[in-house]
């Protein structure tokens, strides 16, 4: 959360307004070519398409009990690396647009 000072002359103490929130997301691990989620990340990044993300913190998805957080991010980097004797690894990052929202019944 970015804070902007809005104190006036003569105030006894500094005042701050909360303005825009910001957030980043990152992923890394072994790249599985058969994992549609991973290939989807790079496809969305190339297209510049925002990605809706849902974190389920408790409960089971689509059961009526799931509670979590939702948000939207846009990928800005996707790196893959491999060698003749190496696993294929990847790392990816993105930035959130808008606020993260607590949600239930996910």
């Amino acid at each position, binding site marked *: 959360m970015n804070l902007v000072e809005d104190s006036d002359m003569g105030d006894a103490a500094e005042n701050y307004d909360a*303005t825009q929130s910001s957030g980043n997301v990152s992923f890394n691990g072994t790249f599985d070519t058969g994992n549609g989620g991973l290939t989807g990340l790079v496809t969305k990044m*190339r297209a510049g398409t925002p990605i809706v993300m849902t974190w389920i913190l408790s409960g089971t998805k689509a059961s009526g009990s799931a509670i979590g957080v939702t948000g939207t991010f846009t990928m800005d980097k996707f790196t*893959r690396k491999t060698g*003749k004797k190496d696993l294929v690894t990847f790392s990816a990052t993105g930035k959130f647009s808008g606020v993260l929202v607590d949600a239930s019944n996910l």
Partner: protein
Amino acid sequence: MAKGKGNLSAIYMQTSAASVTQSAIAMSRVGTTMWWKPTNPIMQYFDKAHTITVKDGGTTITTVQEISYAGGYVRLLTVPAGVVTVDAYVFACSQVGGFSAHNIDENMTLAECSCYEDGDGEQYEALQYSASGQASGFYSTVDAFLTMSKGANKDLTLTSNVLGDGSANDGVSATSFEIVVAGNNTALSVVVTVAAIVVNSATGVAGAATSTARDILDALNASPEAMALVKAKLATGSNGSGIPGALAHTHLSGGVNPAAFDKFGQDLIGVFYWDKGTALARTEGLVTFEKVSLKGGVKSLIEKTINFKVQGPLYDHSG
């Protein structure tokens, strides 16, 4: 999840002086995806400077989503009713090598577009895509070669040491190889006349060949004249214990036309494989090598680590 294991990459370059117009290039659908690619692989390098026209049963399709010039792929929005064909300008191309390791960085520049004190989270929009990478362990595939086919454990592979041999510049090397079986109780010998390598196989009392592939390999390696022309090794899967016998006079072939190497600095097709064993996947695009001196020719790059930039988009394909 199955273990991922890296595979190699392949680099192709233009070998024709200019692209040539091709009409009604037959296209095949890639699995159940919305991508179509040329049925004939020699049509895989589209010239991006010319318009590509995609047709469905002879009628031009206006709903083409993307064109991958490096692989000759087109992506459609809807499944066509008829046969897909393409009118395009096409470069001839040949593989010149590849790398034993690579990494690719793909980036999307994001611009913050939120308003001051709008009370919401920061907003970003995607602006421009770019990609670059680094690859190491360059290997060359530009040389003419010959793999014998005499049978199990009888075969050698000879690879030309000379880039640019062959008066016709057609990839057929001036270097030739022959195994002669003649006479009785003769000794193994190697005779080189200009670019012709002749191996005289040892023979027995009845005139049958007695030199094994391993014997011939050792004899070639002991001949400075032969080694100036070729590198020799046992063919893949051969232990050299078999006796190949006679081999007719055969020129090495499959080399890249040396006249084409003045285009090596231009857009190259990069094919980078990501392999998890059960589902081979690759990323393709046009790449340009950075900070590479081509004065020594493509072979001077062997084993080098090279940085490259991607021209335009990259595309992932499976299979």
